């Protein structure tokens, strides 16, 4: 066993095309839940702020969802979404990201200082405009912070899908495991982490670009 080197570089070279297609699959399956999650979390979060009463129940539901093991959910979805389809992986991940994003949206809107909201009202903003032009933009940093966590976990969780036949880079883990072969596993881990790092960096960049007004806020 010891003779098996940790990384066989030639293997990576030879199999790069298939690794690449796994990578692409991984990107799609982790990105879609974040985007869909965000699109759903925004209205839901708004609703939770508007009707405070539904926040707790919604979050309880989300927390229960969050504590369901991903593997089990993947398995149980197969009859609905089909074997080894992207949907099998994407659907549960949407819910996981909701569990992070809804509180982020709610906290984000909560981070709008009351005096800012009041002065928007006093200046004659209609409720919708106030939401779009004042409250949502101010909520951006908090929402983005949530989005970063959601993105990273989503990217990491996709690989579990490999156990039910569709896990992007997770395939490399199964493959390496079966063949007692470290290289694919290491390549997979490194690529997943790299992917997460890139997504994270992009979101940080987005935050910088979107919210120049919040930079160095703490020091002001």
């Amino acid at each position, binding site marked *: 066993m010891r003779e098996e080197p940790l990384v066989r570089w030639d293997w990576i070279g030879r199999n790069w095309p298939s690794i690449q297609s796994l990578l692409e699959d991984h990107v799609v399956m982790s990105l879609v839940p974040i985007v869909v999650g965000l699109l759903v979390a925004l209205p839901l979060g708004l609703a939770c702020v508007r009707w405070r009463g539904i926040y707790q129940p919604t979050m309880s539901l989300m*927390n*229960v969802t*969050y*504590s*369901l*093991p*991903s*593997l*089990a*959910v993947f*398995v*149980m979805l197969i*009859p609905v979404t089909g074997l080894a389809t992207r949907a099998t992986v994407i659907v549960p991940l949407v819910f996981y990201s909701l569990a*992070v994003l809804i*509180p982020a949206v709610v*906290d984000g809107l909560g981070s709008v200082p009351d005096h800012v909201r009041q002065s928007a009202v006093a200046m004659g903003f209609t409720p919708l405009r106030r939401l779009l032009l004042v409250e949502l933009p101010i909520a951006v940093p908090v929402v983005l*912070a*949530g989005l*970063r*966590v959601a993105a*990273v*976990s989503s*990217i*990491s*969780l996709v*690989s*579990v899908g*490999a*156990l*039910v036949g569709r*896990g992007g*880079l*997770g395939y*490399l*883990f*199964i493959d*390496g*495991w079966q063949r*007692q072969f*470290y290289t694919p*596993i*290491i390549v*997979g*881990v490194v690529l*997943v*982490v790299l*992917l*997460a*790092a890139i997504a*994270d960096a992009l979101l940080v960049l987005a935050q910088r670009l979107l919210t120049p007004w919040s930079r160095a806020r703490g020091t002001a």
Partner: protein
Amino acid sequence: MNWLVDFFGDPANWSGPDGIPVRLTEHLQFSTVALLLAMLVALPLGLWIGHTGRGALLVVLSANAARALPTLGLLVLVVLLAGLSTDLPVLIPLVALAVPPILVNTYEGVRGVDPDLRDAAYGMGLRGGQVLGRVLVPVALPLILLGLRLAAIQVVATATVAAFVGLGGLGRYVVDGFATNDYPRTLGGAVLVALLALLVQLVFVLIQRLLVSPGVRRRNAVR
């Protein structure tokens, strides 16, 4: 719902080495050990960094990277490298999973304590350790506990995957149910894990009630 009855109603599932009590105990066991190990690493580190402010950037960045570590990949790698003779290797990915939320929340909790409070504490003649122990930790406690709670829930939920490499616990039902196309079993396993997670939540609410001073208000957690 019939599925649930199929699984929970079967007396065979309540006894023997593959019975619910045994699986539940196993699951609890290694979840607890993993959580304890993670606490052992993350709590002191988080407290220290939050208190001294040293190495904060590095740790926060690497904690986020650790969050990205795919549990499955880590699991198979570790087991391949170290073998299955003990459960310890299997715990490594779980520990890696639990460290970031504990670390980040502990760090944020301590760091976020009003600087005036810290000032007042030093000004009254508390020593560094006393400031940490008597002021920073009690004030940061809600956030620290929240971090622990998130970690615990993630560990409980993710420990399921460990069944893939032959570990026991409730994950067995999920994995075996899938392998034998026995949906009630998978579903039953999932429900048990969710119930366990719920129980963990309850326990933490209780701990919170017991340990956190009513004078301290809650802040937002970082997942």
